[in-house]
């Protein structure tokens, strides 16, 4: 089934080293009428709480916010995982945050964000893994794949650091392997 024929409840994008520019590019070219909640889980410095969301908002075609705990997912709004908190997607379409221990040396952990979305929304989850320097996110993407969600891996050749996409590709076969321009097109194909 084509991506545009699928029905999703959430899109989760994860990335680490080099992902800021890719996410910024995606957000700047996204259709302003993008119809789904978008969750961004990016590795970031734990003691720098401001700057990233403002930077992304400068070019983004949809609002980017850092959610508070128990905040509702909203269609057409990108929610960026706050620094030093894990982010989980819940059954009731809310976000929950946690200060539990780091996972893969990371908080927020991309694995946790993907896995929680897969657990809550199963095949209605679209996961996209971008450039990054460690394996965090690979297992979470596999969870989305296992629940029959849709998975897109950034083409390793287009990555600043390809360790994260490569780790994902070792674990499962994604629905698509795309460069950043193609990822934008894929997301915009979801706009009716």
């Amino acid at each position, binding site marked *: 089934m084509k991506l545009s024929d699928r029905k999703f409840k959430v899109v989760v994008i994860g990335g680490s080293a080099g992902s800021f520019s890719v996410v910024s590019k995606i957000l700047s070219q996204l259709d302003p009428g993008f119809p789904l909640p978008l969750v961004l889980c990016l590795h970031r410095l734990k*003691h720098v709480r401001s700057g990233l969301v403002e930077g992304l908002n400068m070019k983004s075609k949809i609002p980017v916010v850092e959610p*508070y*705990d128990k905040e509702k997912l909203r269609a057409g709004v990108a929610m960026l995982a706050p620094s030093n908190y894990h982010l989980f997607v*819940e059954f009731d379409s809310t976000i*929950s*945050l*946690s*200060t539990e221990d780091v996972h893969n040396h990371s908080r927020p952990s991309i694995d946790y964000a993907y896995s929680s979305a897969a657990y809550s929304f199963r095949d209605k989850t679209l996961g996209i893994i971008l450039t990054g320097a460690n394996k965090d996110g690979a297992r979470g993407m596999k969870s989305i794949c296992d629940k029959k969600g849709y998975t897109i891996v950034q083409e390793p050749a287009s990555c600043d650091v390809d360790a994260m996409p490569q780790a994902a590709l070792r674990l499962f076969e994604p629905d698509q392997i795309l460069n950043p321009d193609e990822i934008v097109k894929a997301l915009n194909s979801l706009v009716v």
Partner: protein
Amino acid sequence: MGVTLGINDIKAVTSEMARYKNMDYTGLSFSFLKRRLAYVFEKLKIRKLAGFFERLKEEEFRDEVKYHMAVKVTEMFRDPGFWRYVRQHLLTELEPKFKVWFPDTPSGEELYSFLILLEENNMIDCVEIVCQHSSEKLCEEIAQGVLEAKNTELNYSNYKRLEESDCYDNYFVEKNGQMRFDKRLLRNCIFRVAEPGINKHEDEIFDFIIFRNSGINYSYSKHEALHSTILNHLRPGGFYAIGVKEAVPDNLKKALVVVDQKESIYRKPGVKSERLHETI
């Protein structure tokens, strides 16, 4: 391979635990319980629910469970901006004598951070601090100054971000090859074994309550109820600090005034004077 818990398993586990004193975890959110119970079962090498229920009859085992259910704060001076605000703005509002409550103390990091600020402002004997947790072992560890050694570098770098003193090493002593927080700074702290937020001293009132990042583990309704209960113990004009990404429940928004939105510091209205101690 650990135990995988479904919804019914989690309900069975929490209702069984709730039969015992200080073990009511039924208000925690389902997703948190799923993760945390999996963690606890792995730590305690639990393979079957029946075995877990049987072992709950042992008091020592129950304390171990409570000990591992706690989400420890992994660094001192987490959110340096919060601590900087406390030092620069709140301490002067609180002197000369004040009482502080940590309604949930899952580890020593927040308490020790606060004590260092007090010490550096010559206020350590101005305060009485009540800390509590449901695990006796955990309370004992904190009272003994136990800290995670692996976080020393991070603790120090956060402390340095406060941009004032540089005498971090003065607050620690070595005991049996391990660094411990200097117990002399804990001289005005009281430790109680109790569930988070529950204060059996009904009339006890505090000037400052620090309850950061514990409420996020609860379901929405319990979260509201917990904050409401805790706020009953806050003096009018007193300060309330929660996690920087934790929102005040809707039903309490009118009961609090924002002091600093970014650091999630609030104040209970009801005092005409700006200086709290003038009304005491």
